[in-house]
């Protein structure tokens, strides 16, 4: 390596160079990750199922020609295609308003995934920041936040969310708010605990000896050691968030009624269970498979990412 490589003079060439480095790092990590994932077929399957759901959510208008909200009242409660009366026009049948179930399930994945990702994302950010600070600096800040976390944990999650939603009223933003209101606590406790454990390790002392400041130690030394745990818990909790969303929608406290959501679809089909079981069952199965896939993928992720489980 020579020292007289020309410095990057223009902003664009600098950025190009920077992103080149980042891309190479990501590429290397991705290759390692893929190699590990391939050895865990169940986790791989989970990942593929999640990708299918994601694709469904993004490409919904292109996958189906039906309108998810407007039905055909002459086609009420049509059975799935394998029934003698069923047809491929409505592969999974129709609901009480004559809307295609498959279409509604595909559109419903949008709500579930958006709520899952957003609620988890916001919870992770809040919980991680508070956990890092509380675990590192302790003191009064830690006491106050920890007591608040204990307080929030003392409420059953669903009851708590129902209360918040009843107070705020249905709506997408309110739903995210209700879920993150308590969702951050888990991440806070995880990060705080990990921080307490990491803080006593000698590499932190060594960083201080090397002249690092507190913020640099937190962000550059400790966070990279616990980011894996956050990632794994985030994945596992996402399934939980999706169930919460479905539960709230089931109770009519989720997104507004005109937006198709799996929870409200299950609720709407309850009255027809004996004559048209599919109206409730298929949205329920959609929830089941997504959450199962997320959990299986999360477990695999834990096995791959947690360095403590690895023996080299």
């Amino acid at each position, binding site marked *: 390596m020579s020292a007289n490589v020309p410095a990057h003079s223009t902003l664009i060439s600098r950025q190009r160079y920077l992103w080149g480095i980042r891309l190479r790092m990501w590429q290397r990590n991705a290759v390692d990750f893929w190699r590990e994932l391939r050895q865990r077929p169940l986790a791989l399957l989970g990942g593929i199922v999640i990708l299918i759901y994601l694709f469904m959510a993004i490409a919904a208008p292109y996958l189906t020609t039906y309108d998810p909200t407007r039905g055909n009242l002459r086609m009420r409660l049509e059975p799935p295609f394998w029934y003698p009366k069923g047809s491929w026009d409505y592969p999974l049948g129709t609901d009480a308003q004559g809307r295609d179930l498959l279409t509604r399930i595909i559109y419903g994945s949008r709500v579930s995934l958006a709520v899952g990702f957003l609620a988890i994302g916001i919870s992770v950010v809040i919980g991680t920041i508070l956990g890092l600070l509380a675990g590192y600096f302790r003191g009064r800040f830690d006491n106050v936040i920890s007591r608040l976390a204990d307080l929030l944990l003392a409420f059953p999650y669903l009851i708590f969310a129902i209360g918040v939603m009843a107070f705020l009223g249905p709506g997408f933003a309110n739903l995210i708010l209700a879920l993150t209101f308590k969702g951050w606590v888990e991440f806070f406790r995880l990060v705080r605990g990990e921080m307490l454990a990491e803080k006593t*390790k000698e590499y932190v002392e060594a960083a201080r000896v090397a002249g690092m400041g507190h913020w640099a130690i937190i962000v550059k030394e400790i966070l990279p050691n616990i980011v894996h745990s956050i990632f794994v818990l985030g994945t596992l909790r996402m399934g939980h968030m999706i169930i919460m969303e479905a539960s709230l929608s089931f109770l009519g406290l989720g997104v507004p009624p005109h937006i198709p959501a799996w929870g409200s679809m299950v609720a709407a089909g309850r009255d027809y269970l004996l004559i048209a079981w599919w109206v409730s069952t298929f949205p329920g199965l959609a929830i089941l498979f997504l959450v199962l896939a997320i959990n299986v993928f999360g477990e695999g992720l834990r096995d791959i990412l947690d360095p403590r489980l690895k023996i080299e």
Partner: protein
Amino acid sequence: MSDTPLLEIKNLTTIYPTKRGNVRAVDGVDLTLHEGEILGIVGESGCGKSTVLLSILRLIRKPGRIANGHILFKGRDLLTLSGREMREIRGKEIAMIFQDPLSTLNPAFPVGEQIRESLRLHHIVNGRLPWPLDRAARSKEKEIVLKIMEEVGIPSPMDRYRSYPHQFSGGMQQRALIAIALVCGPSLLLADEPTTALDVTIQAQILDLMRRINQERGTAIILVTHDLGVAAEFCDSIAVMYAGRIVEQGPVDQVIGNPQHPYTQGLLESRPRLGERGRRIHPIPGNVPDLVDLPEGCAFAPRCPYARPECTEGPIPFYPVGENGHVARCILHA
């Protein structure tokens, strides 16, 4: 020897408040270290050896604090510096290595990157552009890192640059740690039991390495150890600590060959030696005293075979007991 010593510790007292009173972990310690010297601090666990090192870096964990004294490093009193000035000294001027190299290295980063981090922290290489952009500065840094890895004896540094700490053996980890400590070219290296966690053969290699660094770079070293053998082999001078105080101090051959304080004698007696099977080991009777409210006089008196009533009546000064400034704090030599 130059006129101003590299490090001069005067009357250093570090205390940890507890419910029962103040624990004086370091109690009125005076030490002087010249450039290029190797000083050993020996003593039992909990006698305050490591606290002395942490006090020098001002990294005593709260609620502990340095209650008294001066620490003059190159003529500047470290205890009066601001936090920012102190951070610049840590790692750059005074570096430290620890007992357990694996837990001291950050498990999340490759070893080479950790060495480079030390360079970046102290802006050793000044690039024209902010760090990740300046390719010239980056390759210069990498060059320095590879050079230091080679200097501390990590074979094929190019291949090892991207290795993670757990892929290194214990000895290699300690070498990597030494590389991190040395890469900014400190004039003082604090070594806290650097060989305790290693095999005996590796111990010797690491000590050799540290001696070579001392000779080639002129880095002064303070070695804290409970192993008198290591200290005897490695150091120029030795300070023996007991219950937060220095009880005997002097050139290594004097202190080890002709110990004058009963505690030093006891330490040497209680050490098994190779090839002397029939010899009885004489442990020192009793335990290390409670560091809360130590008596004014000799802290070793309750365990000392020569103790007299006068021992605990008042502070005991250092008495000269041999050549080249060999001193002991014992009234036997009054």
